[in-house]
């Protein structure tokens, strides 16, 4: 096939493709459910997540199991678990979303720069990613979390730091192949500036990589955020996040298993939803899969 000298359209029929994959529907439904939980938390919550109910503890001072007043039970301070789970969804999803967005923008930019300008810039940027990728992510996060005072912006920063290098490498490898195509050469021949070529010609070609990556990486960001909050270097108490709710339940799971089961279920719904959705998005964008589907 003759390659045209104008940029080829990267996608056609992506949504039609995606609609045909059942995983997309299931994943989308799970994600939508959790997003609604977070968005409607003030409406859906029976109580303030921080209120310690006087009747929220048994006479022995232990958390209450699920009943009519507290649908998902109470925690060790007599707070309503359902409300904490819903408000926790706000925190966990917002933190992961912002961290992922920042990492996606930063990683894509670095990848574009490294891939387009080979040579010294490429070398320096890629060595930085080498070093960051050498750290086991959780340990690096623990280290950062221990030197910086835990707060929500710090969690976002940490998650961004451990997330962007992998994307930058991925984008770079894509840019390297796109860079050699004829339409880039013609753009350069007619005197287009570097910035114009990078953002108008190369970016549209590689943006799908970023999109798939961001969907798939959302789940792992949620997991790392909850792990950090669980270990005490994430979202600080008393703000509810699923991770620190599980941490509070850790020493009490024998008398109050709902304290760990409720946030665990919330995490699982979210990560499973995003993984199913991300997997489907990848399949829908992969020309090989779509050909197979057309053939069958």
């Amino acid at each position, binding site marked *: 096939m003759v390659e045209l000298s104008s940029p080829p359209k990267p996608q056609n029929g992506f949504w039609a493709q995606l609609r045909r994959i059942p995983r997309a529907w299931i994943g989308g439904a799970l994600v939508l459910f959790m997003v609604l939980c977070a968005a409607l938390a003030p409406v859906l919550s029976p109580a303030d997540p921080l209120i310690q109910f006087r009747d929220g503890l048994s006479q022995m001072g232990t958390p209450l199991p699920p009943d009519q007043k507290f649908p998902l039970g109470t925690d060790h301070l007599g707070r309503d678990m359902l409300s904490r789970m819903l408000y926790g969804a706000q925190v966990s999803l917002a933190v992961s979303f912002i961290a992922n967005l920042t990492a996606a923008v930063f990683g894509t930019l670095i990848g574009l720069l490294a891939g387009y300008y080979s040579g010294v810039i490429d070398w320096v940027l890629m060595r930085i990613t080498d070093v960051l990728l050498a*750290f086991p992510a959780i*340990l690096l996060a623990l*280290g950062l*979390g221990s030197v910086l005072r835990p707060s929500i912006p710090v969690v976002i920063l940490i998650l961004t730091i451990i997330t962007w290098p992998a994307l930058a490498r991925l984008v770079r490898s894509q840019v390297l192949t796109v860079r050699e195509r004829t339409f880039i050469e013609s753009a350069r021949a007619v005197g287009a500036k570097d910035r114009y070529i990078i953002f108008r010609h190369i970016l549209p070609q590689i943006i799908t990589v970023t999109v798939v990556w961001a969907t798939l990486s959302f789940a792992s960001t949620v997991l790392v955020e909850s792990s950090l909050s669980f270990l005490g270097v994430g979202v600080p108490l008393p703000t509810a996040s699923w991770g620190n709710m599980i941490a509070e339940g850790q020493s009490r799971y024998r008398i109050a298993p709902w304290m760990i089961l409720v946030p665990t279920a919330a995490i699982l719904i979210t990560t499973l939803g995003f993984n199913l959705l991300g997997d489907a998005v990848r399949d829908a964008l992969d020309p090989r899969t779509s050909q197979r589907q057309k053939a069958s």
Partner: protein
Amino acid sequence: MRKGWRQAAPFDLIRLANLCGKQTVSAYLIRRLLGAIGVIFGVATITFLMVFLMPGDAARMYAGPRAPEETVQRIRVLWGLDQPLPVQYFRYLGRALQGDLGNSTRDQRPVIQAVVERLPATIQLALAGLFVELLIGVPLGILAALRPGSWIDQVATVLALIGISLPQFALGLVALYLFGFVIPIFPLGGYGTPLHLVLPAIVLGIGGTAFYSRVLRNSILEVANEDYVRTARAKGLSPRVVLFRHILRNALMPVVTLAGLDLALLLGGVVVIEAVFGWPGVGLQAWTAIRNQDTPMIMGTVLFASIAVVFINLLVDFLYIALDPRIRLTKS
């Protein structure tokens, strides 16, 4: 022939083969080694910067809030904290080169000694986790590849997705509740007998299981299209012999690479699992150090673990070359 294996070549193999076209394997190995040293240097620089970012005064923390200023100053001089930053940096690098990762601010024990002491427990857990991954992942991958598109392949796909979606620490607590408390088969955390190892190893390995089965499945499907597999079938060999002698041997190559890379991931997961199960390894120690604000201990552990990961990856690369005769053959 050459074109055939290039298509099937996974990951590093392609890069490696391209390199080998221009230079010899030993030149490649030297480059890899130099690269690894560079990365370690970078890792050490970052950990140093993180120690320097630490809020508060390490000397003051060690001396206690009511210690007189002179004492704190003496500790500062003793630890070299009064020196300018570049001097501290080069001293830090020099000491790290000699295996000195600093001392715990809590009990003044050398960090390296504390880490090495806890290392066997962590290695034991990591290897057990890896074992679980391979034990379930490899058969599942083979089964899925035997009938691509069948129900077992579908189930394996779904299991893979669930596996990577599971929050390990939460799963660990749920497992402790179910199999330690409700049905008391296993001890509620701790260390010692093989029984103590079962739950943490399963929880650690279960996520990666899915991953391996997917990689092996795709790798088998790729290798199955190779010329030499067709030849083996044409010779009239039984499907079983073809599968185990001809396909699996080659299809396991990416799994070997992954197992090495995966150890890095496992090391991260180990921290969380150790915290949940009270497993007395390096991770639990690092976690305790965070609560004690023992920064040298945390950073020493981070540095140690990262260096370990770099070396494991290097070893895997070398192992790959040793395992695959095709790479050695392309030596010019």
